[in-house]
């Protein structure tokens, strides 16, 4: 049985999110496998150029409307509902992102179809979608089976390779009419950039990241020492920033920065999906955590089960000695 | 060894440890002294005042035939008596010694040892020249009358009188109020023990009345004093109370009988908080229990037209005597104890405390009467409108420690304020706020009392009250509004404005209004604040500069009851020591008149601070009473005809001394 898959694209500040290509690549592979097709729904205003990037899809469904100039949950939800109802795909893939989280579950209610969140893996076997979700902060994997009758799957960033979706091919673009966006209950006002005085961690090749395991503010000094000697910068997962120990500009993850450094050293970070989203593409990931079960070890290249208070000073010392003239 | 009439001076210089020798080269001074004319012996010694030092002098006099002695050491104030004694023990007249002060005037005040040594030599030279002219003098003795006068019938006077009487001395106790008892009789409880003031005072008052050795004259005042130590003649004015003490038995029926059914005139004892009749006793336990008739208000005395119900009811005793006149009686005594007490600061003088303006602002003495069961309210603490206060502020240091009023600490206010806080809280359960500058609770059991009261939950706020003003106007129904007491709480640096129903001003103690008159009459001195001055604050605290006159109680300075009683006992002991010796010995350094040269100009008489000079009408010359003369020299210097001279300060002695000084090479 062939599966027709609809991918809902998202973009911000004129760029498509990486997850769109992850989903597109995966959808393409599954569709090819089952003999189905892939359509991408792209909503926006004046975003035809973005549609051109989505050539791997059988068809890009372009909904262009001034009301979609900036992402608004209500408008996207309304448009997506109309499009899905009209195209009746077997499977809908939505990013498990700030935007996707707003619309995936409501769509499932409106359309009366199942929804599975936090997808890390997806297969199609015997006419059913087999979704592996990362639950309980990554401590459990849950495998659920869905009938291919329009089910919606929210895909965690980092689940699939992005490159597979970036095949350069001329896109088939079909513009769809957009209706019913006249009386919105919500209006986009503005984008707020976090103050830019701090260093730009997206441009720093070495990042030393700290999480809950840091215990207290004083230990940040220890980590800063390591970062200094490694010529990198200190960043953090959300809890550390919430404590006010580091500025928001240093936050990695869903609501923070997306980084792709040469080295990402995760200290005391368990590896919750929201965090992993922001750093999974680092070239080299080294994780230090006292909990051997921490999901961060699932994406790290090297892992150390230890107290960061022991490892960090030792590594700082080793680096210092390595730098010292012989 | 015989001196054969030649001057043989012995010189002694004291090291005083390093006090003198550390600065002055005593060897050099001793060697220099040896070179002076008349000096036959010169010694230095570590401590001349020590027994071996004194013995050295006595022995040298005997063995070396010395007839003049010069000691270079400390101030004569300290050791002149010592060395005179040593000289006397050596068999020489004690007035043939002279001291040179090279410590207070030398080593202690100079840093340059060389110059100090030179100065010491100069002083020694002057002394050696002076001592040559010393002549033997004799001390004289005057007999002492064995009776004592105690002026003032407060607790100090009572205690002094009882002590002397117990020693078998005849005492006259003079009190100007109708009853003895003084301020203590007005108090409710006494700190720190909180025993009832009347309970401990009245037995002593009764004892005074009952003691055969005590003559008690109340409603009486001293009007004149003559004579000197051992032999004073004192004039006492006995005011008429219009009731004969010898006939009255104290039944007080006359008071009930008075045509005034209720009190109508301000009651002095209750500070005007209640009314009395024209005939009254100040308080129930008064001693003597003899009523007084107030001539200002007695209808009989004012108009002569009264039913005289009082006289009628006393018919059997017939003690009334409306014809009584003031009586002046002279008594002779050997010593006088002044126990004239104090008065409290007039709170009206500090306008911002509102005393006399707001009806709920009281003085501490008034508060004493309010808490007293025999007081105007029967011991109920109530405001003029009859309500009990729910909050009371007690303001310490009113009129004390204040350059605008009295600079001194009145010493008793902290403790009596705490006592009042305790009593008022006990009576009313009111919130009590004591505002203090410093909490002074020195003395036995005082700190413990302070602790006790603070633990009772009295609010102790450190800060001098700066303002008292009404929170609300007084109500038409006579309701007394609260006042706000404003002060900085210095311990938290915050201004506190506490509304209270009642304010008590802890007024300070000050000299009696007529203290100056008393001072003149008894020829004593006052300290800066007007309290009588003791001869020495530490070593002669109950003596005055006038021999035979002693101080007891708060007339010398603010003090509490224990201290007043202790001082009264001390004054009595000093008086006893004087009387029991039977005589007084007079120093011979007195002035004397060269009668033949005196012109009788009388210019010296008013100058004498001790009233020792009188004019002999028979010969028309000045004459000096050696018993009174203190040797101050004022008359000597002032006599236009140089006819007054003074022993030990003869011209020859002084001029030689000056010459000695001036011959400094």
């Amino acid at each position, binding site marked *: 049985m062939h599966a027709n898959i609809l991918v809902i694209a998202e973009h*911000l500040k004129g760029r498509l999110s990486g997850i769109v290509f992850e989903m597109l690549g995966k959808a393409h592979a599954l569709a090819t496998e089952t003999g189905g097709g892939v359509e991408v729904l792209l909503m926006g205003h004046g975003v035809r150029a973005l549609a051109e990037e989505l050539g791997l899809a059988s068809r890009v469904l372009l909904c262009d409307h001034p009301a979609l100039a900036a992402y*608004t*949950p*209500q408008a996207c939800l309304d448009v997506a509902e109309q499009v899905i109802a009209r195209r009746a795909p077997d499977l809908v893939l939505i990013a498990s*992102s*700030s935007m996707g989280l*707003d619309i995936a*579950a*409501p769509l499932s*209610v409106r359309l009366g179809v199942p*929804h*599975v*969140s*936090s997808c890390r893996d997806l297969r199609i076997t015997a006419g059913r979608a*087999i979704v592996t*979700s*990362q*639950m*309980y902060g990554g*401590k*459990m*994997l*849950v*495998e*659920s089976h869905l009938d291919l009758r329009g089910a919606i799957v929210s895909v965690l960033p980092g689940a699939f390779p992005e490159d597979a979706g970036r095949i350069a091919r001329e896109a088939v673009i079909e513009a769809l009419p957009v209706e019913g966006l006249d009386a919105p*209950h*919500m209006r986009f*006002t503005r*984008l707020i950039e*976090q103050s830019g005085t701090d260093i730009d961690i997206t441009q720093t090749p*070495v990042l030393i990241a700290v999480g809950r395991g840091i215990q207290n503010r004083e230990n940040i000094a220890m980590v800063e020492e390591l970062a200094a000697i*490694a*010529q990198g910068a200190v960043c953090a997962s959300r809890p550390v920033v*919430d404590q006010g120990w580091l500025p*928001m*500009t240093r936050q990695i993850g869903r*609501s*923070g*920065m*997306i980084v792709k450094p040469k*080295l990402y050293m995760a200290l005391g970070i368990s590896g919750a999906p929201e965090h992993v989203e*922001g750093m999974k593409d680092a*070239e*080299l990931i*080294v994780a230090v955590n006292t909990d*051997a079960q921490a*999901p961060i070890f699932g*994406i*790290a*290249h*090297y*892992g*150390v089960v*230890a107290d960061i208070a022991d*490892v960090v*000073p*030792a*590594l700082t010392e*080793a680096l210092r000695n*390595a730098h010292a003239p012989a | 060894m015989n001196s054969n009439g030649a001057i043989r001076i012995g010189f002694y210089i004291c090291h005083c440890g390093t006090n003198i020798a550390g600065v002055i080269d005593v060897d050099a001074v001793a060697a220099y002294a040896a070179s002076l004319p008349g000096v036959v012996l010169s010694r230095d010694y570590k401590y001349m005042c020590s027994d071996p030092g004194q013995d050295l002098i006595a022995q040298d006099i005997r063995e070396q035939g010395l007839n003049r002695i010069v000691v270079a050491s400390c101030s004569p104030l300290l050791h002149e008596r010592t060395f005179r004694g040593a000289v006397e023990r050596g068999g020489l007249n004690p007035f043939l010694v002279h001291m040179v002060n090279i410590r207070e005037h030398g080593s202690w005040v100079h840093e340059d040892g060389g110059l100090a040594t030179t100065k010491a030599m100069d002083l020694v030279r002057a002394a050696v020249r002076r001592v040559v002219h010393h002549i033997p003098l004799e001390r004289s003795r005057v007999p002492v009358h064995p009776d004592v006068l105690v002026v003032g019938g407060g607790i100090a006077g009572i205690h002094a009188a009882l002590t002397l009487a117990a020693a078998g001395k005849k005492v006259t106790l003079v009190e100007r109020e109708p009853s003895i008892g003084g301020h203590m009789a007005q108090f409710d409880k006494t700190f720190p023990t909180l025993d009832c003031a009347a309970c401990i005072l009245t037995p002593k008052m009764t004892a005074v009345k009952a003691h055969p050795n005590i003559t008690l004259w109340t409603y009486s005042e001293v009007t004149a004093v003559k004579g000197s130590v051992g032999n004073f003649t004192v004039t006492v004015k006995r005011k008429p109370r219009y009731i004969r003490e010898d006939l009255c038995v104290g039944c007080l029926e006359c008071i009930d009988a008075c045509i005034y059914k209720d009190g109508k005139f301000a009651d002095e004892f209750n500070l005007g908080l209640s009314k009395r009749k024209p005939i009254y006793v100040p308080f129930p336990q008064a001693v003597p229990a003899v009523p007084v008739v107030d001539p200002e208000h007695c209808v009989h005395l004012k108009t002569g037209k009264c039913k005289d119900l009082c006289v009628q009811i006393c018919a059997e005793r017939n003690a009334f005597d409306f014809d009584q006149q003031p009586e002046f009686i002279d008594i002779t005594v050997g010593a006088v104890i002044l126990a004239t007490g104090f008065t409290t600061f007039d709170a009206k003088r500090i306008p911002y405390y509102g005393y006399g303006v707001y009806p709920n602002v009281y003085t501490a003495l008034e508060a004493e009467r309010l808490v007293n069961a025999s007081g105007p309210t029967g011991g109920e603490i109530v405001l003029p409108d009859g309500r009990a206060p729910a909050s009371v502020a007690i303001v310490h240091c009113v009129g004390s420690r204040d350059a605008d009023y009295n600079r001194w600490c009145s010493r008793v206010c902290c403790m009596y304020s705490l006592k009042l806080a305790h009593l008022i809280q006990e009576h009313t359960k009111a919130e009590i706020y004591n505002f203090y500058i410093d909490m002074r609770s020195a003395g036995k059991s005082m700190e413990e009392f302070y602790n006790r009261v603070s633990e009772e939950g009295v609010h102790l706020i450190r800060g001098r009250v700066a303002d008292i003003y009404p929170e609300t106007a007084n109500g038409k129904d006579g309701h007394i509004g609260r006042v706000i007491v404003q002060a900085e709480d210095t311990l938290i640096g915050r201004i506190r404005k506490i509304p209270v129903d009642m304010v008590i001003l802890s007024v300070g103690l000050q000299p009696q209004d007529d203290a100056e008159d008393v001072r003149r009459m008894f020829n004593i001195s006052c300290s800066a604040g007007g309290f009588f001055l003791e001869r020495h604050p530490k070593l002669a605290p109950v003596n005055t500069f006038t021999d035979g006159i002693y101080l007891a109680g708060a007339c010398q300075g603010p003090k509490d009851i224990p201290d007043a009683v202790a001082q009264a006992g001390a004054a009595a002991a000093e008086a006893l020591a004087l009387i029991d010796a039977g005589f007084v010995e007079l120093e011979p350094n007195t002035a004397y008149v060269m009668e033949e040269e005196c012109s009788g100009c009388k210019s010296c008489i008013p100058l004498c601070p001790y009233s020792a000079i009188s004019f002999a009408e028979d010969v028309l010359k000045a004459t000096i009473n050696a018993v009174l003369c203190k040797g101050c020299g004022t008359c000597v210097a002032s006599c236009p005809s140089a006819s007054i001279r003074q022993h030990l300060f003869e011209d020859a002695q002084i001029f030689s001394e000056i010459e000695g000084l001036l011959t400094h090479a």
Partner: protein
Amino acid sequence: MNIVVLMKQVPDLVEELEVDAGGTLLDRAWLRFITSEYDDHALEQALLLKEQHGGTVRVLALDMGEADEMLFTALAKGADSAVKLSGDFATGIDSHSAAGIYRHALEGASFDLILTGVQAIDDLDGPAGAMLATHLGLPYIGVVSGIDVDTANGEAHVRKEYPGGLLAEFTVDLPAVIGIQAAMQPPRYVPISRIRQTMKTASIDETAAQGERIAGAISVERMYKPERAGSATMLEGSADSIAERLLDILTEHGIGR
């Protein structure tokens, strides 16, 4: 400003999670429950808005885990009322069913805002708050970390978090449902004595949960712990030897020089 807060209990990750014999559910024998972190933030945000604008905060929860303690804590923190929806939740409940129950509980009720955590660690079928909004026909915005209410115009200004430290501000007509990522300040502390006191003095309204359970839409076939250490090469030994190994690895990758 009347606010409804939806809160729920989720498994406490401090304890080891185990899978039951059936292989599709958590072994509840060892499970401890804790209030979902995001819901705590939703409550905090509600209390902050109440402090600012007055009104009431009403907390709704399904009778799962330690719901009573959670609700009493909410009351102790300042919520005005707490409703416990009881039913058979012994093996948990999917979000679609939960949203249905909330819908029954809230239909016809008067409120200005519904706040709830943007998600929870056990939301396999997505966040219930977003679904509830659909049921009630109300606007929904999630991943919100700041709300200002303009009561005069009946709207709220919300700040939604985007990747890269960006915030998007929206104006939403009230009533609305908001999925809270973080309150404008960390959840407050409430003394345990006050919680205990609240347990004695306050009460929780308990009503039976209504609304059909949606069964079988998703069929969970398997639940299992992730392979330990996934792809990571684990380094062991003393801190110093680990440091040396790391140094080699970094050097190999051309880092740290």
